[in-house]
């Protein structure tokens, strides 16, 4: 592989990582703060993408659509928190798994009911269309660079929010002792709703931003959900920094695995067999990385609170 291609693939890995981060950020926030396993996080991502596609089709403006997606996902999140999630905080992870599993079914079918069974159309806004040249002769999509930018901005914003504000402090206090923070006069219920809506909004933003690159369809959140879980576990649950680094690690490893493994193997197996074997190994690679990391660091790379 030429070095120009290598650079491009690294960039691809970074971009995939940032994309995963956008999804993982909300998940790790909700997970870290409320100790809640939210399988329906992928559904909020889907809500964001559908809302974005619908508003874009209606107004013709992608940026309005982005705002619409944020609002829709945050609202769906707030509603979900008030109606369902709120009753699950004291419960163990299993009840949460069951309830949010049920929510996936509800969200998926409700979305299909609303929008019909066929995937929706959503495209990159005109000003972000096209590519820029990369050194070495290749080209890179402007929109993907924009995603990298937004992802990094979100990472910094979230970091400041959590470590520098009183809201962040209360969120972290609630993480360990919800009852106590309430007894000190903090309205933890509302706080949780806000945090949940924030996490949902981030998922919606991720869905909306990724929608133009992918298929806006029912069930689109599930593959990302699993990857996002992998990311936050590698990074250390509840850690924003861990989510970012975990996401980039997963993005780069996955991209490089897909790009390099078949080539490495083709000397041994011949091109066709190498292509299938390489691809199988590549699909297992990130899980392998996760296992190795957890065996040596059972609480992830950046265990929260240390």
């Amino acid at each position: 592989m030429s070095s120009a291609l290598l650079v491009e693939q690294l960039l691809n890995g970074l971009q995939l990582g940032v994309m995963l981060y956008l999804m993982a950020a909300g998940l790790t926030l909700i997970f870290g703060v409320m100790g809640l396993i939210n399988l329906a996080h992928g559904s909020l991502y889907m809500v964001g993408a559908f809302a974005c596609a619908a508003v874009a089709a209606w107004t013709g403006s992608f940026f309005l659509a982005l705002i619409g997606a944020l609002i829709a996902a945050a609202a769906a999140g707030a509603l979900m928190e008030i109606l369902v999630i709120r009753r699950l905080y004291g419960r163990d992870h299993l009840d949460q798994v069951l309830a949010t599993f049920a929510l996936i079914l509800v969200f998926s079918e409700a979305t299909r009911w609303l929008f019909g069974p066929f995937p929706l159309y959503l495209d990159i806004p005109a000003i972000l269309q096209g590519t820029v040249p990369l050194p070495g002769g290749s080209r890179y999509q402007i929109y993907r660079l924009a995603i990298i930018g937004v992802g990094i901005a979100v990472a910094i914003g979230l970091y400041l929010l959590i470590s520098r504000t009183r809201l962040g402090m209360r969120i972290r206090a609630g993480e360990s002792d919800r009852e106590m923070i309430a007894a000190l006069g903090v309205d933890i219920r509302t706080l949780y709703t806000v945090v949940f809506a924030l996490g949902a909004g981030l998922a919606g933003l991720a869905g909306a931003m990724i929608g133009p690159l992918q298929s806006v369809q029912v069930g689109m959140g599930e593959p990302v959900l699993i990857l996002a879980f992998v990311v936050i576990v590698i990074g250390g649950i509840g850690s924003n920094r861990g989510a970012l680094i975990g996401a980039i690690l997963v993005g780069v490893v996955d991209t490089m695995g897909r790009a390099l493994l078949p080539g490495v193997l083709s000397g041994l197996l011949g091109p066709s067999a190498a292509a299938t074997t390489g691809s199988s190994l590549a699909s297992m690679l990130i899980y392998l990385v996760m296992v190795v990391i957890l065996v040596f660091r059972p609480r992830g790379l950046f265990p929260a609170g240390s």
Partner: protein
Amino acid sequence: MITRERLVEITLVLLLAAVPIAAQLLNEPFYLTLATRVAILGLAAVGLNIALGLGGLVSFGHAAFFGVGGYVAGVLAIHAFNGTPMLLGLPGTKLMPFIWIVAILVSGLVALGIGALTLRTSGVYFIMITLAFAQMIYYFAISWPAYGGEDGLSFYVRNGFPGVDTLKPLPFLLICYALLALGLILFQVLRKSRFGAALQGARQNEVRVAATGISPYRIRLVAFVIWAMITGVAGALYADLNRFVSPAMLSWHMSGELIVLIVLGGVGRRFGPVVGAGLYVLLEYWLGGITERWQLFLGLMLLGVVLFARGGLIGLLAGKPRHG
């Protein structure tokens, strides 16, 4: 004294026993298939109940063992069918008892390997690392062409059991009932044993167990392996029920569904898995028959149970468990 829980259990056993009779009377042989599915999923959930209800080991990777059991059945059957030898030149077989033993051994071994590595972690990390292993096996199965890859492996006729015609639904149902009963008894015996006490202790307070001189790691590893073995047998039966096995049995959805069963029924309750499996299968059957949007209503019903019936259906019917 007969507790409410006991009463519920007796009713349940009677209900299960009534299914074959009802199927006969109403001429609805499909009821047998449904009951078989309940028994098999229930057995898988019994395994999960040992690890989860007693040991608190929430995992998202048990589909791995379910699928491994299924593939053991499929692969052995296909080799026996084609008369080709397998790995190491061993022959295939179409005899269920052999298949079960192999399924127990293979899933136990896989679990020993996975468990030895994963049980160092705990809580959510454990959930996710078990998921990682299951996903690896899943992707391997999808892309490994020898046994059908994503298309799965169809073996046309159900495997046999000496002296029983397993092709007929009823005898196969009875075999599944018998294994389910064994599983339930094993659960009960384990729960009351010293091992069970240590396992439950490790769930409630890991540090304390260690300080009394019991290694939680070893206790959990054994529980993990037992769990995998039971789940593996259930997987082999499931493959036999469908005469088919595919990577879908290994997917995280399957793990999720098994968790759903057990939470529906009641975690840590002896009959929780059976009640949960029964309810889930019935809902799926019944809703799937009335509306194309059955998943929406299934979701809403699951939500209802989780929110309003704490402790699952058994909890709702029989009240809180007695501790002691």
